[in-house]
């Protein structure tokens, strides 16, 4: 089924005030904890870690044709089965075939963007298989029949009252609006599913080429449950998740939790090399391309594939903080969503998203693997405006002009400084408090939906004070 065009602006008008408040509260906490965690490491060391993280991922991406066969060889030697999926259709077919072979009736899943990307749950359910998301937030979102609103906190948009009502309606239990009790209820329900499931499905945070090891991090322990209990484990992993070695993994793990949640390390890191004395009888690894090898062609946009999904760029993004996750219209949220979606879904579908940014640069500064997100946003604006080689442009002429002007200005420092100064003068008459209630056309396309953050050349200073 073709994905409909994502109308970012229209989406922003359907957002509950609770989501915005919850988003801002959560991102503020995450960023404060992140700052503390980095302070302990030391700024210089943190920068060195980021550089190493970036270099390791870029090395792996520019050697994917060597590392993927290495993963395949190691996993196969160890007794696992490796499958290659060119696209979502193939990936779904592979998983359905494995499920059919084992007469699978019930599946437990740990949070995975790749499986959401290929809409696996629906395919499994259509085949008559019960699928349970087991990350608490994902479980709640699945019960509600919704999509996640934050990359690492999927149920952010729901209050404890919403969740209690949902549990009463869907689980038929008496649920008070108390997080501890709600968590307890979900634990009980999901325990039973873990124990009776005949297949576990996971994604993977990293795939280590040197040993064919799958790495899954979770705080709840559901990743361990899904990969240890059911007799068959299927991991669906994007080909960009490959890293060369365990040394590289240590760097990635030091970056991931600190950047995402401000933890020093995630509660559980599962290191799964197939074929041990322990664990499921069968291990299947599905290597998913689905547009990734195509993304590699673009030398600038390629770095998108280095993302380790920490969510920090969403946390710090002023646009994300004011529109929430749903506005991005797909599973890819925040600044990383704005650069992934157009590349994976095509600019026809997601061409609006690269424009959903004030280009303040905060996302690039915060990214633990130094993905130059602002540059890629600009680059994709060009691709949208000039017509993409993969899908024709659908962007409106107004946004098109803005993109060109913006690009030129940022490429020329003096012009940028002049622009910033003029923007502030120009704003003076519109400004009310910290937010611009409306902007003159054509920029009002933006503020019609949400109050737009007042343009500041020193966004980061403002952010720290906020």
């Amino acid at each position: 089924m073709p994905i409909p065009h994502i109308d970012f602006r229209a989406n922003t008008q359907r957002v509950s005030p609770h989501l915005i408040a919850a988003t801002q509260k959560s991102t503020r906490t995450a960023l404060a904890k992140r700052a503390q965690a980095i302070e302990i490491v030391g700024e210089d060391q943190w920068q060195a870690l980021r550089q190493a993280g970036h270099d390791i991922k870029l090395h792996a991406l520019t050697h994917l044709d060597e590392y993927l066969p290495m993963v395949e060889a190691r996993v196969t030697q160890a007794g696992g089965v490796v499958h290659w999926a060119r696209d979502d259709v193939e990936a779904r077919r592979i998983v359905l075939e494995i499920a059919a072979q084992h007469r699978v009736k019930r599946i437990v899943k740990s949070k995975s963007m790749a499986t959401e990307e290929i809409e696996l749950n629906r395919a499994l359910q259509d085949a008559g298989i019960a699928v349970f998301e087991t990350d608490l937030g994902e479980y709640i979102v699945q019960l509600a029949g919704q999509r996640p609103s934050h990359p690492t906190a999927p149920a952010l948009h729901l209050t404890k009252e919403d969740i209690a009502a949902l549990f009463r309606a869907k689980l038929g239990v008496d649920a008070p609006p108390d997080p501890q009790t709600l968590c307890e209820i979900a634990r009980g329900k999901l325990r039973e599913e873990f124990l009776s499931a005949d297949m576990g499905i996971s994604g993977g945070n990293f795939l280590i080429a040197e040993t064919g090891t799958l790495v899954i991090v979770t705080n709840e322990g559901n990743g361990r449950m899904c990969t240890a209990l059911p007799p068959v484990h299927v991991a669906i992993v994007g080909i960009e998740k490959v890293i060369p070695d365990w040394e590289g993994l240590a760097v990635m793990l030091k970056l991931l939790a600190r950047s995402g949640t401000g933890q020093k390390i995630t509660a559980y890191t599962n290191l799964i090399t197939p074929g041990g004395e322990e664990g499921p009888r069968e291990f299947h690894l599905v290597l998913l391309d689905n547009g990734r090898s195509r993304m590699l062609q673009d030398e600038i946009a390629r770095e998108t594939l280095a993302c380790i999904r920490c969510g920090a760029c969403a946390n710090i993004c002023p646009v994300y903080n004011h529109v929430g996750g749903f506005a991005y219209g797909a599973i890819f949220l925040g600044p990383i969503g704005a650069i992934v979606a157009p590349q994976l879904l095509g600019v026809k579908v997601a061409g609006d998203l690269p424009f959903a940014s004030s280009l303040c640069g905060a996302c690039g500064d915060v990214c633990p693997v130094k993905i130059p997100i602002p540059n890629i946003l600009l680059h994709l604006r060009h691709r949208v405006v000039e017509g993409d080689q993969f899908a024709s442009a659908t962007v409106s002429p107004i946004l098109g002009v803005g993109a060109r002007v913006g690009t030129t200005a940022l490429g020329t420092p003096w012009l940028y400084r002049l622009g910033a100064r003029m923007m502030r003068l120009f704003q003076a008459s519109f400004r009310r408090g910290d937010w611009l209630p409306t902007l003159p056309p054509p920029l009002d396309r933006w503020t019609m939906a949400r109050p737009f953050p007042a343009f500041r050349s020193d966004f980061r200073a403002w952010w720290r004070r906020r």
Partner: protein
Amino acid sequence: MNQARAEILSGIRAALQSTPRLPLPATTRIAPRATGDADAEISRLLSEIEKLGGVTRRIANRDELPIALEELVAKESIQKATWWDTPELRALGVAEMLTALGVTSVPPDASPRTLAECDLGVTGADAALPETGTLVLRSSREQPQLVSLLPRVHLAILRPDARRADLQDVFAEIKSGKRAVLITGPSRTTDIEKVLTIGVHGPKALYVWCLETPFA
């Protein structure tokens, strides 16, 4: 399938054709932490675990171990327990002590359903990272992973020499093995209104005991 493989790999090769293949960074040993002496490191380990909601204790000698177990059994209302069948735990006599306290023993290779009914799972730890409060557990027939996963309470007993300076040291040791898990504090989530809730899927309580050296 082979066609998919060939097409993906040739797609990647074509995409990378006119691009520099970037080198692997020379070093990944960034920011090695200055480590203290054994005592300071163990204090750090235990305090990091405490910060995450774990309960820690230093066990001074053989006489203290049964006392600590008795307190744990009373506090957590332990009725059924399972444990790793390792030489280390056998030498400590953990099984006998728990049985003497009236705790029913469940073999670690019992079915998951039976293990899930256990109140307590006792394991060792192959390594520990004081910097982050992390325990490293490798799994094998002797060290089944479900013992640290399914019971309501997880107790890990370790010796001070399990400490390692850096994740890199841990990985150098375990990379040749099969399954392993790094455990840092009890199972946690903040998925409901960002309120920290302990014990969503894994154990609800994590106890970490460190035996003093020499342990006699």
